[in-house]
């Protein structure tokens, strides 16, 4: 019996190649799309899977209260916290500090830049480092020990074992002994490092790291199995206020399960994060699948006339309804499985492109059940979903009616079909509108006035080597070359947040106002280099000594002071009196969607971490870069020439938004393609069904255009209806999405107009192809074959 079903299903597919193509190809696109998204979702939800007992591992950020609002900070716990947590909270079995830092590594002649961390020993167990060479117990025995990753080891040594006991130089100054080599972290890991060395190397000689006054390090803890996380969290929260007497700074537990997907904090509590995108895209994958299934339903029921006789005869011969339902489901599942195979091929072809698009390294392991099963399940799901309605509909035919040919297309089926077309097009139009708005929003932010000029601005690390020491000569040589306009140093990256303080007082400041001010140390040419505008007063002089009690402040800082003329006023920074020398216009850093905290600038080169260079106007950038490289070769010998452009760094910040933009474009295009495939099939069917009518009309004198209009009209009405449905839905959804951005676009009416117009146009082209074909056919032919 099953064989009979497959046979007839196969022959039906073969006989109606056009419709079969639409069904199979449409479903294949849907399945491919869903599979790609699931691969991405798998990667996202499996983040930090390498950490053993992940549910017991926590990071410890701090919540700090400013202006009545909790703000959450990472790498911002005081030095003693880790040890205190382990000593005073019995459930905490391990605790470790970790401070990230970059160094130039040297072994013999070879050198490489590395990003690693100084950390406490417990971190090895908390992160579950995988030792390839060396002994975990002895790894941190000596202060000058270092654990390196396989990646770093392979640069300097042939085999990992060769590395053990060898010396490695940090920034050509300090020498460490390699005690162990660990496996590289998987790509989907939140906290990674190239090397790990004992924490004392960072704290020794730094008195300020010993007390509760400075929040400078990450803290990680591991709990005992079976601990009540809520209770432990309460204890953790109580520790800092107890030690410092300040109730406005508390440490909290942040589960490793949430590091990647739920890392957005709002008023001290987790408020979503990437999980929202994971949910959104999973939902969209489902929608795309359903759109593809709708094609199958529509074409199957539309063509039911052709199958009606078969149904009638089978019933007359003794088939029950159940058997018929099963038969049609078999057909749908067979079609879906062919689509599944097609989509496997598509997947193999598309995964590399998809990886480029989403900036990941996903791969399909087709023999692994974790990948194979979902594809089979999706395929089965498609087959059953798309076959169910046709199966019930077709099997409901009454044998006497169909066998006598008295059955007409049922009104309910045609209504269902129209409804499904409206659903498809509504979804497609929603996708088009959303894509347009996401694109606008991303562009809007990218074109935002940052209060500085990011284009062509060169940024390079300056903390290591001799850049700070030789800065005056570097600056001199570069500017005199004529290839560079100006050079400057700053203590943090221009786009990032950095040091901040609430310890600044000024006249008129209300005492209870706890306002966070960012502190930046710069050299005099910084404002010119970064294209920032001095609004009032003067900049810094060329002498640090002369400027030692002067500061520049940002416009938003000046506004806090509630006096019109702030230049010349003094402010009190932890007891040190400073004179405001000038006011610069606000610039954007940190959160690119929000507003940045006020800033106070010092003149100081010593603490610089980054150097900024503004190339001279009209000079080819490659020449400038070559000049910088040759100057640094002599002024900062032994250190590789590394730089990046600030506008590139800026664009990097919009990865999630870019992802949404890219994916929503793909979804919109796919949804439209699949919907149009369906529309194409349906219009072909309608044209076929109305052949005789078209023939008669033509014989009676109708023009080709008249026929095209006749055939297209019904479909256009459906598309127009879809526009009416999709506009309010997409307005609501996108308005909600935009609420998440402080700096956002207003939704303009023309976006809807464009989306609606394109949908109508695309549908019209699709339908008119069939309509024209039918209209120009010779009417004699259609009338004769009747």
């Amino acid at each position, binding site marked *: 019996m099953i064989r009979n079903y497959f046979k007839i299903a196969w022959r039906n597919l073969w006989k109606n190649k056009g419709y079969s193509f639409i069904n199979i190809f449409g479903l294949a696109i849907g399945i491919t799309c869903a599979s790609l998204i699931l691969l991405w979702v798998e990667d996202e939800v499996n983040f930090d899977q390498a950490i053993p007992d992940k549910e017991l591992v926590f990071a410890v950020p701090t919540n700090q209260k400013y202006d009545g609002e909790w703000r959450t900070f990472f790498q911002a716990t005081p030095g003693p916290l880790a040890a205190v947590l382990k000593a005073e909270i019995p459930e905490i079995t391990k605790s470790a500090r970790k401070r990230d830092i970059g160094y130039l590594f040297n072994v013999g002649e070879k050198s490489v830049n590395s990003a690693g961390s100084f950390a406490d020993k417990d971190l090895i167990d908390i992160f579950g480092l995988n030792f390839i060479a060396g002994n975990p117990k002895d790894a941190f025995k000596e202060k000058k020990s270092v654990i390196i990753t396989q990646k770093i080891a392979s640069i300097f040594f042939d085999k990992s074992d060769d590395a053990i006991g060898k010396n490695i130089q940090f920034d050509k100054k300090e020498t460490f002994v390699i005690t162990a080599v660990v496996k590289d972290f998987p790509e989907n890991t939140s906290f990674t490092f190239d090397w790990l060395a004992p924490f004392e190397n960072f704290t020794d000689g730094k008195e300020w790291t010993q007390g509760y006054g400075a929040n400078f390090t990450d803290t990680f803890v591991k709990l005992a199995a079976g601990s009540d996380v809520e209770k432990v969290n309460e204890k953790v929260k109580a520790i800092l206020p107890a030690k410092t007497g300040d109730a406005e700074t508390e440490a909290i537990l942040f589960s490793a399960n949430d590091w990647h997907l739920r890392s957005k904090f709002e008023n001290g509590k987790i408020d979503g994060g990437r999980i929202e995108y994971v949910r959104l895209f999973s939902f969209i994958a489902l929608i795309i699948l359903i759109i593809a299934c709708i094609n199958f339903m529509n074409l199957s029921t539309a063509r039911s006339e052709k199958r009606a006789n078969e149904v009638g005869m089978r019933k007359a011969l003794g088939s029950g309804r159940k*058997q018929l339902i099963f038969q049609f489901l078999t057909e749908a599942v067979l079609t879906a499985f062919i689509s599944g195979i097609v989509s496997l091929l598509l997947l193999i072809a598309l995964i590399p492109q998809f990886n480029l698009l989403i900036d990941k390294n996903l791969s399909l392991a087709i023999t692994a059940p974790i990948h194979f099963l979902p594809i089979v399940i999706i395929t089965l799901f498609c087959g059953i979903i798309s076959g169910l309605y046709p199966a019930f509909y077709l099997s409901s035919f009454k044998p006497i009616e169909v066998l006598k040919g008295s059955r007409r297309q049922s009104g309910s089926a045609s209504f269902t079909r129209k409804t499904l077309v409206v659903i498809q097009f509504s979804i497609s139009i929603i996708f088009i509108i959303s894509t347009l708005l996401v694109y606008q929003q991303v562009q809007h932010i990218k074109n935002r006035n940052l209060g500085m000029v990011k284009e062509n601005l060169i940024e390079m690390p300056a903390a290591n080597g001799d850049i700070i020491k030789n800065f005056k000569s570097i600056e001199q040589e570069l500017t005199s070359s004529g290839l560079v306009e100006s050079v400057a140093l700053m203590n943090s990256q221009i786009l990032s947040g950095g040091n901040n303080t609430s310890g600044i007082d000024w006249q008129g400041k209300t005492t209870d106002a706890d306002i966070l001010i960012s502190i930046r140390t710069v050299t005099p040419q910084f404002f010119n280099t970064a294209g920032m505008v001095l609004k009032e007063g003067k900049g810094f002089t060329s002498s640090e000594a002369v400027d030692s009690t002067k500061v520049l402040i940002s416009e938003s800082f000046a506004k806090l002071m509630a006096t019109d003329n702030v230049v010349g006023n003094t402010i009190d920074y932890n007891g040190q009196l400073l004179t405001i020398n000038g006011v610069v216009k606000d610039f954007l850093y940190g959160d690119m969607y929000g507003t940045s905290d006020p800033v106070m600038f010092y003149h100081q080169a010593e603490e610089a971490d980054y150097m900024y260079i503004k190339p001279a106007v009209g000079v080819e950038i490659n020449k400038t870069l070559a000049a910088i490289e040759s100057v640094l070769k002599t002024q900062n010998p032994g250190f590789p020439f590394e730089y990046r452009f600030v506008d590139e760094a800026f664009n990097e910040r919009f990865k999630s938004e870019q992802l949404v933009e890219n994916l929503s474009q793909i979804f919109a295009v796919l949804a439209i393609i699949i919907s149009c495939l369906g529309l194409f099939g349906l219009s072909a069917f309608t044209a076929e069904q109305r052949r005789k009518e078209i023939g008669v009309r033509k014989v009676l004198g109708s023009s080709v255009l008249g026929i095209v209009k006749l055939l297209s009209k019904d479909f256009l009405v459906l598309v127009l209806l879809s526009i009416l449905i999709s506009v309010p839905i997409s307005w609501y959804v996108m308005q909600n999405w935009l609420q998440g951005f402080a700096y956002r676009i207003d939704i303009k009416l023309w976006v809807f107009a464009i989306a609606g117009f394109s949908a109508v146009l695309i549908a019209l082209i699709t339908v008119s192809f069939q309509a024209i074909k039918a209209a120009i056919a010779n009417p004699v032919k259609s009338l004769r074959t009747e």
Partner: protein
Amino acid sequence: MITITDLEKYYATEEVRTIALNKLSFKVNEGEFVAIMGPSGCGKSTLLNILGLLDDPDGGSFVFNGIEVAGFNERKRADLRKHNIGFVFQSFNLIDELTVLENVELPLIYTGVKPAERKARVDAVLEKMQIMHRRKHFPQQLSGGQQQRVAVARAVVNNPKLILADEPTGNLDSSNGNEVMDLLTELNEAGTTIIMVTHSEHDAKYSHRIIRMLDGQKVTENVLSEYVSSK
């Protein structure tokens, strides 16, 4: 074999109720060949559908092989149908996607006959109908006469007690038509009861008895030839 008494069937639309069968009564004995004639719309086909258990009467009684079947549900009707009744239609109603062999095999599949026996029975009936050489062809590749022979083969492959033929020669030319009528006569002589609806006086002459209908009622009944019940 068949006894219908005061059989009624209505077709109702929103405005009108049409009476298709109006208290119709007659009997058909096992082994008989009965022709039903009458103008279009007199209720012949409705009657045939009810006799074929494809449709349910609205009133009256229908006793098939001693069982009252009026009021049977769809599943019970289907079960009775597939074991006892074969159909031959004017438009053949072969399934286009199945070959001759597969079309004829279908009723055996639905009655759960084992594959080996299926093959033997299908071969035998194809041989008998002289279409064995066409068994791998699809219906569209056959002439009308050949298609109707396949349809007859499909109707008899299950050895039904009753064959219902609805204008079996309506789509055929006279020589093909005669061939089909000869086939039906042969089957009848071998013991199968046949009820045939027809417009053709010529075809009706093959039967033992002609029932003429008008407006859902029997008007006359003429016995053409002696029929001797086997029982």
